[in-house]
């Protein structure tokens, strides 16, 4: 269970693989949120815009973390 959550979170937020393989690829068609944020925020220098894109990840991560906490609690009891 914990491994599943971990896998989800780290796959969800992984941008290095996308960046290395396609760089967001033909006409930005293969971006994930992370790599898009990198492109906009760092390469184009628009940090605020990039941060906004990143913030979109947050709700998803929050849900994952809540599940993780519950799983941990249950195992302690």
């Amino acid at each position: 269970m914990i491994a599943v959550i971990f896998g989800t979170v780290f796959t969800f937020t992984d941008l290095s693989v996308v960046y290395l393989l396609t760089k967001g690829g033909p006409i930005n068609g293969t971006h994930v949120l992370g790599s898009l944020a990198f492109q906009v925020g760092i390469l184009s220098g628009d940090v605020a815009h990039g941060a906004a894109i990143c913030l979109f990840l947050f709700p998803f991560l929050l849900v994952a973390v809540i599940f993780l906490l519950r799983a941990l609690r249950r195992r302690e009891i």
Partner: protein
Amino acid sequence: MTRLARKIAGESSFYAAVITLVTFAAFPFYWMLITTFKTEGDLYNLRSNPYWFNAEPTLEHLRYLFEDTLFVQWLWNTALIGVCVVAITLAVAVPAGYSLARTPGRSGENLGIGIFLTYLVPPTLLFLPLSRLVSDFGLQDSLWSLVVVYPTFTIPFCTWLLMGFFKSVPREIEEAAIVDGCTVLGAFVKTVLPLSVPAILTVIIFAFTLTMQEFVYALTFISSSDEKPVTLGVATDLIRGDIFYWGELMGAALIASVPVAIAYNLFLDRFISGITGGAVR
């Protein structure tokens, strides 16, 4: 007779599974190895057998890697960053893990979980704000920025790991040492630390590999070639536009990954006991 047949079937399916797994794990290394020594013509000829040499093996890729790129410098940078990060991590995580493990009641537990949650906040969320910070400190384009930033994910993880381990060390040992005249700190250094060598080794290897495989921060903070760690240098300087320097890429990946793989194998037993010790509490 049927029992014998069943036993043979069971054993052979077991070994078949093992062989499949081993092939699965070892194949990338094999691929790296032969690509490193293949000539360009052999690599790009679609008709030749990709699993073996069709032309004479060559050392040209390795020569290029060591003489015409900054590969040695990158390895050096990685080692330097790794050693610094491991030192910082140990200096923080060992006392933190110990005190969390000895905090009475549920508060220590909850604090531990809280620390672990910070590890779950991924670099993908953090690299933008951190890039602002790094440039405010004037560290952009310097490998010291990575030395400062990498502990943000090694420390939580290692603290958690060590906390789990320290909990499994019986408190009576320290109490005995205190009765014999040690201070609390002395008891920790003289009795608990020697017992936790496996955990500390685990932490060192973990911190080092986490540092080695990190890519996002390095990509964000560093752009001049001679400050890059090996992952970034290989990925950015050996891929130029659409041209992949496959031989050099594979050689570099092989050289960088083999020492870590060997270290893992040397410490495998202790490593596993370290991890499960943390998991079971």
